[in-house]
C-alpha cells in the first residue's frame, strides 16, 4: 500500500445481496469522507487522580459523506435517489482504489441515505451533499450484518 489521493479512490454500492454482492461504482462524486470512524469514550473523573481519563466503549455511529454531482451518471443517480426516498438499506464499500485490484481495501457497511439535499447555487455545479448512516440490517432474517473490511487478495 502507498500514499493515495482521494481522486483515485472509489465508492461502490451493492445492489445484490450481502452473500452474493453486485457492486456498481458511484463515479460522479467529489469528496468522500468517513468523519465518524471513532470509538466512544467512557470518562473517568476521580478524586484520587488529577487527570481525566477514558475507557473505550462502542464504535460510534459510522457515516459516509460524499458530494454527488447532479445530472451525471443517470442510472446511478436514479438508483441513489430511489434508495433515499424508499429509505432502502444497501451495502456500500468505500475503497482506496479499484475494487478489482489486488491489495486494495476499504470499509464495507450497510447504510441508508440519511441526507440528500440538493444545492442549486447560482455559480456552482449543482449537487447533493449526501450522507450515509450505518443501518441495522439482517440478511437472511436473523443474521445481523456488521461493517467489515474488504481486502482484494
Amino acid at each position, binding site marked *: 500500500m502507498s500514499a493515495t489521493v482521494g481522486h483515485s479512490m472509489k465508492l461502490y454500492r451493492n445492489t*445484490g445481496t450481502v*452473500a*452474493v454482492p*453486485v457492486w456498481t*461504482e458511484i463515479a460522479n462524486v467529489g469528496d468522500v469522507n468517513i468523519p465518524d470512524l471513532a470509538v466512544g469514550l467512557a470518562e473517568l473523573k476521580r478524586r484520587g487522580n488529577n487527570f481525566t481519563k477514558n475507557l473505550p466503549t462502542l464504535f460510534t455511529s459510522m457515516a459516509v459523506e460524499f458530494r454527488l454531482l447532479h445530472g451525471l451518471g443517470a442510472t446511478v443517480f436514479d438508483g441513489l435517489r430511489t434508495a433515499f426516498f424508499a429509505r432502502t438499506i444497501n451495502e456500500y464499500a468505500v475503497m482506496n482504489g479499484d475494487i478489482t485490484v*489486488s491489495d486494495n481495501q476499504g470499509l464495507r457497511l450497510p447504510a441508508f441515505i440519511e441526507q440528500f439535499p440538493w444545492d442549486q447555487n447560482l455559480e456552482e455545479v449543482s449537487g447533493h451533499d449526501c450522507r450515509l448512516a450505518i443501518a441495522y440490517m439482517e440478511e437472511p432474517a436473523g443474521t445481523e450484518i*456488521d*461493517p*467489515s*473490511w474488504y481486502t482484494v487478495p
Partner: protein
Amino acid sequence: MSTTPEQDLRSRLTAAKASPTGQPPVQPLKVIEEPMFALSVQELRDAVATNPEHPNAEIFLRAVNGKHSTEVCYVERIDLEALLDNADVRVVEKIEGELVVRRKKLVPRHKPATPAPKPATT
C-alpha cells in the same frame, strides 16, 4: 536431560500462547478477502442465461435490473464461477491472529434427492 534457562523461558512462552488467556483478543471488524471480477451488465445477463436455475442467477438479474447493458458491475469471482460451473459456495471464517478472515470456497452443488417413483396403479 536438563534444560537451559532460555529453553525454560521459551517453553513458558509457548504454554502461554496455547492457553486461552494467552490468546490476543479478536477484532470485531471482520476481514473479507475475495477477488472481484469486472464485467458488463450484458455479460452478466448472458452468464445468467447459461444457468438460470442457479440460486445466484436470480440475485444477479435483480441486482442489474434497470441498468444499461454497457454499464460495468463487479461481482465476487467465486459467485460467478459457481453460476457457470453449477456449484455451491461455502463461506469459511478463520481466526488469523487478531482477525476473523472470511473467504468463500467452491463446493459441488447439493442437489435435492429425487423422490422415488411411485408404483404404477392399475
